[in-house]
């Protein structure tokens, strides 16, 4: 279905263009079988990620946008090995020092400098090495820090696990640097504090510091600002941008808010029910959305214009996202689509490149 993208990924890998890519990635969660399922010999799955392909360039901020339940978080977690993929390939170019260890362990690359992560995640020692390079910032800074651990303990733990820093002093030095990097200054003021003594924004900074302390290359930022007040969101986004430059990072930014994505992302992939329906440069996706779902997402963003109250917002699409257990046949979006044609209910549309780097998966744009 996404052959165009896959071909580009393969040729891009030859040119060393991408840092991390996913090819036809799938992640299914089996449902508990009921007695009827057993009799019918049936297995049901939540098809959270159902064949996505994309590639992220080094230094890029790549965004996954979609509503809850579209599989964006699962994609992020699968990409960095927090969840084993059901099928598909994850291709990644590790740091040179990691490659050295890989050579010692007798691990062979997939192609050139690229390694197949879905294989390496099963390899205990390789997985641990990769953990340093691939990190994640979770959505909820209230839930992702242990309330009984001080900030010092929270930040020291990854160092101990990965045996970085010989002595306590050395580790302390690294913790200081990480806290300074996320502008929790002076760091000694924060070391002894517990999460409940911090504001939401400060907690999210601690989470960012924790992700950075192992000096990663690639960070999945899963809705890092959606739990924060609008008034302080930009501060965290700015910090993420600065750290990206300073530490040479690449981000996968996951959000449901296109307006936030617009502020910092280079490219956007719009996900719907486990598939990418549209992918392209940020300004193209927001300025000229082609897929009816992307159009609806753009139309739904509220703007601070007081004349909005005088009219209802035009929403082309009806209802809500269906369950990922029973995915509609044909185009998965057809039950909500205002432009539905007969082909949409029968056959899944392929992904096509409508203009340079702008891909869409919709029958409206397939020429026959």
């Amino acid at each position, binding site marked *: 279905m996404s052959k165009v993208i896959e071909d580009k990924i393969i040729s891009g890998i030859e040119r060393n263009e991408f840092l991390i890519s996913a090819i036809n990635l799938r992640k299914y969660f089996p449902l508990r079988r009921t007695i009827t399922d057993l009799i019918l010999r049936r297995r049901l799955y939540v098809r959270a990620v159902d064949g996505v392909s994309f590639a992220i360039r080094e230094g890029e901020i790549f965004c996954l946008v979609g509503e*809850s339940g579209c599989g964006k978080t699962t994609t992020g977690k699968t990409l960095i090995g927090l969840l084993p993929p059901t099928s598909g390939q994850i291709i990644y170019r590790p740091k040179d020092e990691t490659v050295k260890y890989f050579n010692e362990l007798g691990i062979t690359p997939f192609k050139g400098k690229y390694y197949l992560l879905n294989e390496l995640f099963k390899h205990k020692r390789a997985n641990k090495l990769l953990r340093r390079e691939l990190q994640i910032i979770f959505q909820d800074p209230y839930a992702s820090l242990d309330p009984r651990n001080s900030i010092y303990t929270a930040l020291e733990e990854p160092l101990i696990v990965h045996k970085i820093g010989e002595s306590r002093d050395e580790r302390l030095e690294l913790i200081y640097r990480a806290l300074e990097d996320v502008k929790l200054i002076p760091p000694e003021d924060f070391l002894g504090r517990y999460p409940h003594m911090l504001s939401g924004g400060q907690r999210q900074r601690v989470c960012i510091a924790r992700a950075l302390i192992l000096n990663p290359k690639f960070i999945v930022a899963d809705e890092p600002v959606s739990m924060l007040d609008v008034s302080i969101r930009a501060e965290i986004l700015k910090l993420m941008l600065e750290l990206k430059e300073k530490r040479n990072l690449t981000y996968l930014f996951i959000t449901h808010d296109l307006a936030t994505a617009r502020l910092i992302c280079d490219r956007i992939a719009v996900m719907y029910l486990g598939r990418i329906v549209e992918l392209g440069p940020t300004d193209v996706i927001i300025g000229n959305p082609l897929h009816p779902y992307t159009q609806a997402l753009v139309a739904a963003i509220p703007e601070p214009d*007081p004349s909005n109250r005088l009219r*209802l917002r035009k929403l082309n699409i009806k209802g809500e996202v269906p369950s990922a257990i029973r995915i509609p046949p044909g185009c998965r979006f057809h039950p909500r689509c205002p432009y539905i044609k007969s082909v949409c209910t029968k056959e899944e549309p392929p992904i096509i490149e409508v203009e340079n780097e702008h891909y869409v998966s919709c029958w409206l744009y397939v020429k026959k």
Partner: protein
Amino acid sequence: MELLEVKDLRTYYFTSKGVVKAVDGISLKVRKGESLGLAGESGCGKSTFGYSILRLVPPPGRIVGGEIYFEGTNILKLDEETFRRNYRWKKVSMVFQGAMNALNPVRRIGDQIVEAILAHDESITEKEAYERAGELLELVGIEKVRLRSYPHELSGGMKQRVVIAMALALNPDLLIADEPTTALDVVVQAQIMNLLKELKNKLGMSLILITHDLSIIAEIADKVAVMYAGKIVEWGTSEQIFLNPIHPYTRGLISSIPRLRGKKNLYWIPGQPPDLVNPPRGCRFHPRCPYAMEICKKEEPSMIEVEPEHYVSCWLYIKR
């Protein structure tokens, strides 16, 4: 005529760490059929303001001063039973924050709506209450058959609609909606805002929308009040607040909204809201204010009317 008039309301929480002055001298008016947006960051006391109007401030909180007039009656003077029978849910009701979790997971939604109706209206039979519950669901765009569903069978957006239906059960004159769309997706959020707009026009009720996101307020509010650290800092019509904001805090809030069009600006309000046990002296916003002057640190600015219906509390606009 004013439906609701709040005068110098003070609601404090008496905690072991000290007195948290969550609402510290708020005066506001809401006319019949008017919608008011109450904006402010988390912890500024905006939800406490909503709870105070329903007289549902959770302990250790207490309303310690001020008056709340509802159609001319000071509801703080009424005894609890009279207020519960005649006002709560009948005249003023609330959609609580995190409404998705406000439903009882082990009871059918129909039974829950009926319970709310029967608790406040003794003249109605159970059968009539069921019919009413069905009508309410249809009013918020859910089929009647869903009366028999359990909350887990509904999506987030539908649960939010059910909670709104419940708040409308007794035809209130005033609906307080506390962050009604916070946990919802953008498309569902737009659907819920459309629903609130339709209901407001159809039922002619007044609305207080409490949220930290001014762009949601722009969707529905006729008037906007901006709250900071337990106080109102600016209050005016929607046009005045959005097109001509004058308090530095309001300006900051509006500039920090990420937009889909125009310049990509990353703007935020530096610092964080003060601790309400020990709020800063003088103007409470002065530690974060880019225009702070000497006087701001010492004396609290009073509320002045800069143009008709547009009030602000800031030393920059007080002529001396």
